[in-house]
Every structure is written in structure tokens, then in C-alpha cells.
């Protein structure tokens, strides 16, 4: 029924937004139609993302604590006091917070490297033609589709110092001489990186795999003729060709890791060691168990700004480096 679509369009066109939004009147008919179609999704985005960001930022300038939980808007405006409290490295809380930020960066960058290497390796393997490829793909997706809490709890068991299988294996192949503590002490952050990467790499794998499938065979043939070996083909064809999708993957993994709560929360148990107290976990514990929402919000804003800055630097670097021409 072609005329239904037309009617729908006409009815949408009747919605008068031009008066309300000045920029709207400058748009072409096509663009207006597009915006109308986007409107519901945009509204949801505002509700789910924008509103909390604005609200959180507002609260970070207010002294919201347990006394003002019911009527947060009555809390006094305290200017940057919350920020100076949480950002002062000389205080215990400030010191903890900065340490948590540092651990967050290690967590994000470490996870990114491990996830990307694992994901790329898996994608390259899947991209080969071999029997059982379908089964392999399904198996490789398991860590991602399996319920993450279950996965993390299993890892937690495997990382136990005495009874865990990881130490057992490392001991029996002679890589270590005595059991390592994975879940307490300074190693914790690396345990976190490994475990989180395990749950995330299939996503990277699938995205890179899709990217690999999009590289024309002829480029490899041309490279073969030009005398490139396996490594050269990877180095000069595959890797550069994956650049656009890699760019997205890198950004997503980095940001998602920075705000990942589940992995540290589940893996490290009720009393997470210092080294495992990444930003989001520390903020949560701090804000929710103490009802310190003003200061918690300030910490969140700082984390948010750090994440955004990293993303912006990253994009700037990418665009400077002619990111757009990585595609075909």
C-alpha cells in the first residue's frame, strides 16, 4: 500500500516545528522528515543519557548528603567545594580517588590492548577457511553471550590462590614457583584486565571479523603478486584496512571499560583490594554507602571529563591522521 507511506509522510509534514525551533526552519524538507523520524529515539537518548549527565553535574555543585536525599534540590549550593574535596591528593579520599583514576586508566588501556589482540587474533583465525569454522565461531562467542556474572564468578574460582586452577597450571608447568595471589594485592588490576578482556574480546572479534570480510580478496592477490608474504599482507593490507572499524572498536572498548562496574564488583568480592578499586567502583562505594551524593557526583563528573577528553584526543588524532581514507 504505497499511499499509506505517503499519507504518513504528509501527516508528519503537518507537524509544525519550525516556529518553535529556529534552526529547524532552515532545514530542507528531507532533513526535517529525517529529524521527525529520529525524534523518538532522540527523546529517549535525552531521557536516558543527557538528563542524568545534567542532573549529576548539577548535584556535583550541591551539598547533597543523607539529609537531602528526599529533597535534593534543597541542598545548599557549595560551588566547587565537592571538587576540591575529592581532587585534593593530600587528603585520604582525594588520594584514593586519584589512585582509583590511575587504576581506571590502567584497566582501560590494559583491557584495550588485551581485548584487541585477542579479538584480532580470533578474527584472523575465523577468517581462514577451515572445517569447523562455524563451530569455532560459536565457541569463541561464548564468553560474550554467557551471563557475565557467572563468567566472572568462575574466573574468581579459577584465580583462587590455593585451590584455583590457574595457579595449579602455572605451578605444574613450572612458570611460577609458589602460588600467586591474583585476587588480592597489586596483581588484582591485571586479573581484572584479563578477566574483563575475556568477556569483551568476542565483541571485538565479531566487529573485526566483519571488517576482515569487507576487505576485497583482490587486494591480497595484488599483494601476493607484488611479493608480499603473510606478515606483509597483514601489516600493509589487513591492518590498515581494518583501521576504520578498529577506530570504533578502540573507542568503544576504552570507554566501556572505564565505566565497567560488573567486572570489578563481582570479581573482587565484598572487600576489593586497593589495586582493584577502579574509579567507578570507588565512586559507587563512596557515594552509596555513605550517602555522599554531592561528592560522588563530583567524582563522576571528573571521570566523565577524563573519559571525554581521552575520546576527543583520540578522535583528533584519528582525523589528523586521515582516518576517513582508511575505508575503500
Amino acid at each position, binding site marked *: 500500500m504505497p499511499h499509506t507511506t505517503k499519507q504518513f509522510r504528509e501527516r508528519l509534514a503537518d507537524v509544525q516545528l519550525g516556529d518553535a525551533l529556529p534552526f529547524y526552519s532552515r532545514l530542507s524538507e528531507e532533513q526535517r522528515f529525517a529529524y521527525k523520524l529520529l525524534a523518538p529515539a532522540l527523546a529517549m537518548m535525552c531521557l536516558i543519557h543527557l538528563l542524568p549527565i545534567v542532573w549529576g553535574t548539577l548535584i556535583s555543585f550541591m551539598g547533597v548528603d543523607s539529609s537531602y536525599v528526599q529533597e535534593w534540590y534543597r541542598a545548599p549550593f557549595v560551588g566547587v567545594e565537592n571538587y576540591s574535596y575529592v581532587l585534593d591528593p593530600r587528603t585520604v579520599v582525594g588520594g584514593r580517588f586519584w589512585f582509583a583514576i590511575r587504576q581506571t586508566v590502567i584497566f582501560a588501556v590494559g583491557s584495550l590492548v588485551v581485548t584487541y589482540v585477542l579479538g584480532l587474533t580470533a578474527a584472523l583465525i575465523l577468517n581462514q577457511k577451515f572445517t569447523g569454522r562455524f563451530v569455532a565461531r560459536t565457541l569463541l562467542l561464548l564468553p560474550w553471550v554467557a551471563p557475565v556474572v557467572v563468567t566472572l564468578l568462575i574466573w574468581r574460582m579459577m584465580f583462587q590462590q590455593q585451590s584455583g586452577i590457574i595457579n595449579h597450571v602455572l605451578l605444574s608447568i613450572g612458570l611460577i614457583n609458589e602460588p600467586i595471589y591474583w585476587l588480592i594485592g597489586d596483581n588484582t588490576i591485571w586479573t581484572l584486565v584479563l578477566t574483563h578482556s575475556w568477556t569483551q574480546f568476542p565483541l571485538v572479534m565479531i566487529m573485526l571479523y566483519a571488517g576482515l570480510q569487507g576487505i576485497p580478496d583482490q587486494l591480497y592477490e595484488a599483494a601476493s603478486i607484488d611479493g608480499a608474504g603473510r606478515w606483509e599482507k597483514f601489516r600493509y593490507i589487513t591492518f590498515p584496512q581494518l583501521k576504520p572499524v578498529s577506530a570504533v572498536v578502540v573507542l568503544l572498548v576504552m570507554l566501556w571499560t572505564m565505566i565497567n562496574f560488573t567486572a570489578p564488583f563481582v570479581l573482587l568480592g565484598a*572487600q576489593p583490594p586497593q589495586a582493584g578499586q577502579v574509579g567507578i567502583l570507588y565512586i559507587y562505594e563512596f557515594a552509596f554507602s*555513605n550517602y555522599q551524593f554531592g561528592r560522588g557526583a563530583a567524582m563522576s563528573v571528573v571521570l566523565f571529563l577524563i573519559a571525554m577528553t581521552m575520546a576527543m584526543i583520540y578522535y583528533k588524532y584519528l582525523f589528523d591522521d586521515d582516518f576517513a581514507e582508511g575505508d575503500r
Partner: protein
Amino acid sequence: MRSHTRRSVLATTGTVTTFSLAGCLGGGSGDGTTIETRYMDAPGLEDYFEKHTEIFEEETGIRVEYETIGWGEAQERLLTDITSQTGPDVQEIASTWIPEQADAGGWMDLESDEVVDHIPNTEMFEDGAMDVATFQDSLVGIPWFWGPRAWQQIDEEIETGGVDGHPDDWDALVDQGQAYDGDTDLFALMGADFEPMRNFAMFLWQSGGQLLTDDNTEPAFHNEEGVRALQFYADLYTEYDVLSSETVEWGAADINGAFAGRQMASTVDALGTVSAYEDEDGHSLDDLSISAPPVGPDGDGGTFFGMELLGIHPWTDEPEAAAQWIDYLLRAEPNAEISSTVGFLPTNPDGFDTEYFDHELYESFNDEVFPVARTYPQVLGWGEIEGELNSAVAGVIQNAVTGDLEDGDIEDALEDAADVARQTL
């Protein structure tokens, strides 16, 4: 003007939420009164409440709806409830949450005129329990059940190990631990993963110290006694080799399992380990004996107790019915039954005369352990101090075990925590 508008918007939102909630939960109350109640999830709870809501309704005509909630989500749910002034009428309170939640207006003063005539007689509760239930001179909850940490041992294992058991003081604990040569892997154990701070508090009290000054205005743990307590705690793992270092990673379930499985001969814990032991096939309470934990160098005793309370949310429309329900739950029989179900002790002393606590083991708890049992101060900001101390203690113990603990670290950790405490208080 502006804030007025904002408030009316919020009010409207609140009303809408209430209506929709009422729509969801309300149905079928008939002409009688209905109250909603919520408890922390535990095995056996459903059966218990099914049975007792029925009895209660027959008796009073008041219908009680109940739901359970996991510990993981409880704090956030409560926060949402308090912010939006919606939720159940009666709810279980964890003692450590009281200051913040009471300050946030989450709990009704149970001595207010609306309810005071219907709540249980508070004179039956121990003073320590009432201290916890009272915050800034108002009664925010009724003590429901509690559990002090006690020295618990499996007598047979202790004998096999060639030691006397029930160590009187720290020295005896160390001596026995080192002399122990039993079939089981471990002599004794205290979890460090779940709230290691509780162990520290215990050693601190035994060492003659206290967490805060009497008027709750200053930290008091960052002194000689505090350092001695934390040092002893750490030394139990490293210096004396009494506690096995691998167990630093253990959570409550691991400990219960180890005790129930006779992988260790003794522990300092609440009743959870006892229940876990009893539930195991072929095990009997007769196998166990209980006493107060060992005293410190100067003869000070002390142990930690945790307590759950029942409170009424101020937004309730049925305060009287809510109070009646709490009163019912605090009767000796129902109180004893729920305490037994969740592995705690009843706060109503008559509960010990019921079938649920008909064992001398429970007598020991009541007679020997309660007198030395203490808990955290009820002061606003305690949550932050507790969180900081938990981190500090966990850090020290974990570093001790991994060999990263250096001279002065203990002092520094306690000093840092004291800084936070000073700032918070």
C-alpha cells in the same frame, strides 16, 4: 517561584508513581487493612512468612503482603524508596545503615504517638540492642534478631589436634594454633574478604581500645591499642601462622563450607557457621562448643555483633497496623523461629525458651558471649569511616599475606582512616 514550580512537578511525579505502584501491588485487599513489607532474602523466609501472615490475618484481620530483596540491591532500592517516598510500610533494617537512612528521613520514630502503643515493649531488649536501635534520640527500629561472633570449635577436631581449645587470651590462641596438629587443614579462621573491619574491631576492643571516643566526635582507633590490634590480626597470618593465608580470599560461604566440612577445627564467627555445620549430614550441635573469644593482653574481652531490626517507613498509611505486625513478629515463638531460620539469635529473651533454641550451645551464646558483644557506633558518617577502615584493614591483611606489608604501614593506614573519620565527624 521557581522552586515552587519544581516542587509541584516533583510532587506530581511522586503522586503518579504512588498511584501506579498502588495499581501494581494493591489488588485484592478486600475491606480489611493491607500493609506491604519487605525483608532481606534468605532461605526459608518464604515459608515462614506464608505461615505467619496467615496467622496474623486471622488474628487481626490485617493482610500482610511481603517481598524479599537481595543484599546486593537492597541499599539502592531503599535509596530510591526514600527519595521518592514510596515503598513498603514495614521493612527490615541492617544496623549499619541506620545513621544515613534515619538522617535521610527513611525511618519513622517508633516512639511517636501514632505507633508507640502498638510496638513491642522495648524493655525486654538488651541495652546494646537498644543503643543500635536508637539514633539521635529517636527509636528508628525494633531489634529483631542478632548474632554476636563467638569462639566456636568442633571439640573432636580440637582433641585430635592435641590442644585444649577455648583459648582464654591471645597468647593461648597463638600457642594452640602453633601446637595444633590435627587431621583438618586449619586450626582457626576468620574471614578477611567480608568486612575484615569486624575482626579488627574485635581485636581493638580486646586490646582495650575503642573505635570512636565516647561522645562519638573523634576517632579513637589510631593509637597504641589500634596498632596492637591490627598488628596482631596480621601476625596471626604471617608471624604466628595461626590463620592460613589462602583464606584471605575467602568469603562467608567459603568459611561456612569449610567449617561445615570440618576443614577447620575452630572459628570466630556468628551463628551462620553453626547452622551450616548443623545442616550437614551426621553432624550434631553436640559436636560443638562455644565461648567468648580470647581476651587481649590486658584482659579486655570483646566481640562484634550484627543486628537486624524492623522499622516503619514514615510514608505508611497504616502505621498502627505496621506496628502491630512488628509486635507480632517479636513474640517469643515467631521471633525464635525467624532467628533460627536465618541463623541468628532472638532479641526477645523468651525466644531461648522455645524449641528452636533448646540447646546448651545457645545458652552459652546468651550467657557468655552477649556480655562482651559490642557493635559500631551509631553516628552519622560512620558509613564512610567504616568503608575507609574496611579498606585500610583489608589492605594491611592482604599486604601482610602477599609479603608487601612494611614497617609503619599499619600506623599509616590507621592514621589515614582517622583523617577520614575526623573529616567526616
